[in-house]
């Protein structure tokens, strides 16, 4: 009897854990055909060694799934409800926003630190000068606008022009890739809940590949226009199942009928 009870509790625990992972991977409680999403690396391979590049740095290529916010940056980043120090205007705006109005649903870029359930990767660009650029490519969610991280030692410009992906400069700190970004526009949302920001946004990502299958993003969120203090968040990405193909084509605007069944127009807030 006691043994059966232990088995039951274990099953409940496993269920809750898997359900939590499932929720973290997706956006909402979508009731649709159970496809399973992007298949991840099998558990038996996760703890394997970190592959390295010819220059000795860890290979962060991926493709990865996750590693950012999606439904709710506060929850996805490891905070408790109410811990995100939003200024009153920002909280009011978040509470007022409706999910269907977010730019991402209208096929505009997710930006940082957003990641949807589709894979993405770091694409390292080596030239005669070494690693000069890293591109972040998303299968879906970048709307075709590549994100570039300058690895050539340049600084942020004084007159940075606000854009969806901002101006990113990167450097290695040991085995951790550090990406510092400013110059974001204020158009994207951090999550489908509607958490806003201003053009004062400054982010620092610290990407560390813990083992073969796991990549951690220690994320500093600083925007004095939106938050009363900088916030430290943590996201985890898992490797896409390695026997699968690389990123696939995903042209979001090909046949986007979102909203019609519910009787609303996309991205109405920005009009």
């Amino acid at each position: 009897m006691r043994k059966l009870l232990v088995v039951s509790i274990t099953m409940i625990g496993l269920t809750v854990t898997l359900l939590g992972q499932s929720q973290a991977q997706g956006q909402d409680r979508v009731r649709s055909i159970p496809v399973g999403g992007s298949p991840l690396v099998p558990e038996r391979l996760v703890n394997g060694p970190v592959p390295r590049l010819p220059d000795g740095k860890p290979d962060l290529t991926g493709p990865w799934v996750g590693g950012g916010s999606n439904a709710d940056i506060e929850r996805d980043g490891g905070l408790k409800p109410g811990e995100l120090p939003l200024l009153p205007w920002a909280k009011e705006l978040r509470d007022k926003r409706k999910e269907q109005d977010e730019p991402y649903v209208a096929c505009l870029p997710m930006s940082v630190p957003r990641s949807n359930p589709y894979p993405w990767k770091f694409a390292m660009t080596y030239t005669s000068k070494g690693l000069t650029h890293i591109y972040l490519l998303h299968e879906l969610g970048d709307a075709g606008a590549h994100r570039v991280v300058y690895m050539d030692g340049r600084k942020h410009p004084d007159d940075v022009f606000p854009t969806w992906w901002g101006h990113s400069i990167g450097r290695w700190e040991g085995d951790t890739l550090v990406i510092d970004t400013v110059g974001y526009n204020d158009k994207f949302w951090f999550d489908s809940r509607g958490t806003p920001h201003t053009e004062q946004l400054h982010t620092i990502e610290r990407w560390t590949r813990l083992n073969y299958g796991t990549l951690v993003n220690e994320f500093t969120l600083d925007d004095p226009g939106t938050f009363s203090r900088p916030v430290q968040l943590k996201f985890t990405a898992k490797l896409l199942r390695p026997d699968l193909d690389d990123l696939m084509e995903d042209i979001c605007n090909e046949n986007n009928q979102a909203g019609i069944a519910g009787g609303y127009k996309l991205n109405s807030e920005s009009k």
Partner: protein
Amino acid sequence: MRTKLGVLVAGLGLVCLAVPVVAHHGFDTEYDAKKKVSLTGVVTKVEWTNPHMRVYIDVKDASGKVTNWNLEMTGPNHVRRQGWRPKDLLPGTEVNFEGYAGKVDETRGSLARIAKVAEPDRPLFSQGGPDADTIPK
């Protein structure tokens, strides 16, 4: 009794896991979880398009009136990665399907299960398609 309850709760939890969360947008803004339908019809078109696949099905009611349902699925890349291909469901095929109606436009629904009438116990486009073992390793 307590043990049986525990197993039951765990079992229900695992059943809930069959509900995926892989979407470009949320469910509740467009579809009504209280309007579940279970119908039989003939496939007229399958769109392997982004950001979501769509299956169109003609359904005939008791009076003979035909309504074309437009049913949304997840993204085609997820389905392709599970080993499904366009040849697995072609127009003209008679199917049983379950789904949730649209909040405003009811025949624009979310597709929850689909199977050929000839093979009712073999749902299409769910995890582990017929070509799953032939994907390059």
